[in-house]
């Protein structure tokens, strides 16, 4: 498969896997048509032509795509008419994921996805043979972190494995599941009150329930068998039932960490830990996976497990000890009891949340800019909010409703600390 000058191609079956569900649908439609024979010769011929054209397109797409490592860059060339050649500097790799949809697993293939910093999006090599992908990932990670290139696959230490029972429990107590219950109850009530209402409810329910089921399934697949392990190059996160993913978050690339405790999970002491790395989602291949929601590192865990991971991600994090003044209750009546913040020379922490409790940590070395915002209500109450902006997708820390004068002092102090942290 190796072309001249170190160019490599993807696996020849890649287009079929990339077409994914479409391929399966085609098989389901075509196999009976051909097996049935005679019934519609023209029909079958038409289908065959469509299939051949699609296969040819896939083949051409595969033929014109190639990649190679050039020093500290990964170059991917693709496109027949609009040729594109992109170079991804490996020093800016924020995380490397391997993604294996069900079909790819059957065929022993793996997608390698490099998340880049800034607006660089993601470099995707879809698909490679699984073994080759693992070797390449180790090599790219080594190049990205500047380690020895042909170092042996380092050993890892498993920190947390999420039991399936807990995943099911957490899903039963999640938003989509509750929606499901509401709809079922509404339908039952509608039935009890006679036909037309029930029909109306059931009719409107079908698309919602479908979407709901898909969302639940995704979350389940994402959380199934989640394993978090510490390796020398960073944190490894694996999960999945049908589509399996494995992420590696290199050390020092964490922009922010967020611990979420949904209100329904509180009785069980469960929480979710999300880690934000740089790189905004612009890539089409990412949209498909609906990554507007952060992929949690720990989809559902106990507080002790989360605490251990937090200690690893942001060592010796400060406690949120300072509270906003009581008059802030007028502005944030629901949130007030959760509002708190704190910072030291390396890290800032803030808690918030109306129903759920959300605690966010931001290393000061990752602060991109600081903002002080004061709305009209806040001005009357003499409080203001300090935002710490990071390059992450979603998580940032905000010190809400800090006393007016204190907020200015804290802003000055944070500017100083962030500068010192940057230079260190």
């Amino acid at each position, binding site marked *: 498969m190796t072309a001249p000058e170190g160019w490599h191609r993807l696996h020849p079956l890649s287009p079929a896997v990339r077409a994914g569900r479409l391929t399966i649908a085609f098989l389901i439609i075509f196999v009976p048509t051909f097996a049935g024979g005679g019934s519609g010769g023209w029909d079958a011929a038409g289908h065959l032509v469509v299939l051949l054209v699609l296969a040819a397109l896939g083949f051409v797409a595969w033929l014109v795509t190639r990649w190679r490592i050039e020093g500290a860059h990964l170059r991917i060339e693709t496109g027949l008419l609009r040729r594109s050649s992109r170079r991804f500097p490996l020093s*800016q790799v*924020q995380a490397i994921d391997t993604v294996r949809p069900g079909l790819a697993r059957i065929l022993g293939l793996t997608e390698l996805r490099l998340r880049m*910093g*800034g607006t660089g999006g993601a470099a995707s090599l879809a698909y490679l043979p699984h073994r080759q992908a693992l070797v390449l990932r180790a090599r790219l990670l080594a190049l990205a972190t500047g380690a020895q290139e042909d170092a042996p696959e380092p050993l890892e230490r498993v920190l947390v494995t999420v039991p399936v029972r807990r995943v099911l429990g957490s899903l039963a107590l999640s938003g989509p599941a509750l929606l499901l219950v509401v709809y079922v109850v509404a339908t039952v009530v509608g039935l009890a009150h006679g036909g037309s209402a029930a029909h109306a409810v059931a009719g409107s329910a079908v698309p919602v329930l479908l979407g709901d089921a898909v969302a639940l399934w995704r979350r389940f697949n994402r959380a199934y068998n989640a394993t978090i392990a510490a390796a020398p190059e960073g944190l490894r996160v694996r999960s999945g039932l049908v589509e399996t993913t494995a992420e590696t978050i290199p050390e020092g*690339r964490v922009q922010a960490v967020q611990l979420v405790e949904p209100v329904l999970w509180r009785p069980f002491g469960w929480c979710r830990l999300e880690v934000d790395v*740089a790189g*905004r989602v612009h890539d089409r291949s990412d949209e498909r996976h609906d990554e507007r929601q952060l992929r949690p590192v720990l989809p559902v865990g106990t507080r002790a497990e989360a605490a251990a991971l937090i200690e690893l991600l942001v060592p010796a994090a400060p406690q949120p000890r300072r509270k906003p003044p009581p008059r802030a209750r007028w502005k944030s009546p629901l949130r007030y009891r959760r509002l708190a913040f704190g910072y030291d020379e390396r890290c800032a922490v803030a808690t918030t949340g109306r129903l759920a409790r959300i605690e966010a940590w931001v290393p000061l070395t*990752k*602060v*991109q*800019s*600081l*903002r*002080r*915002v*004061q*709305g*009209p209500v806040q*001005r009357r109450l003499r409080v203001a909010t300090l*935002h710490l*902006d*990071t*390059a*992450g*997708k979603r998580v*940032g820390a905000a010190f809400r409703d800090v006393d007016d004068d204190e907020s*200015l002092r804290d*802003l000055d102090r944070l*500017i100083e600390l*962030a*500068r010192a942290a*940057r230079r260190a």
Partner: protein
Amino acid sequence: MPSADWKRPSPRLRRARHLEAGIGTALAALVVGGSFALSSAAKGAIAVACVLAGGVLLDVGLQRRVGAWGYLEREDDLLIRRGLLVRRLSVVPYGRMQFVDVTAGPIERSFKLATVRLHTAAATTDARIPGLATDEASRLRDRLAARGEAHAAGL
């Protein structure tokens, strides 16, 4: 922070905002007045009067907002303050700047004004300075770029 050193947008920005408010109000008056005048001329006149009154309020608001803009170049970072109702103060360290944009819309261009916008790796950074004289804008851009170079830091 002492307010003496704060620099402000060009006075021409006030005139540009007057023009913007005027154009917006005239268009709104035309559409609203026209549609009400279809039923009766008196209704049309009242509607136009209401829109004009709204336009005056808008203009006053815009003028006061122009007065609230300010920026301060410090040794290591740029401060930008703005907003009347919601007061915002942004601090952008030079070392965190990814790039600096200078843009000018048609109205800004006709007043020889431009907007300077700073981008960091964070999407939430919202640092822009509108209504700078064109040459001042390009000078500021060059200064910021030079300082960014000197302070550059990785992600």
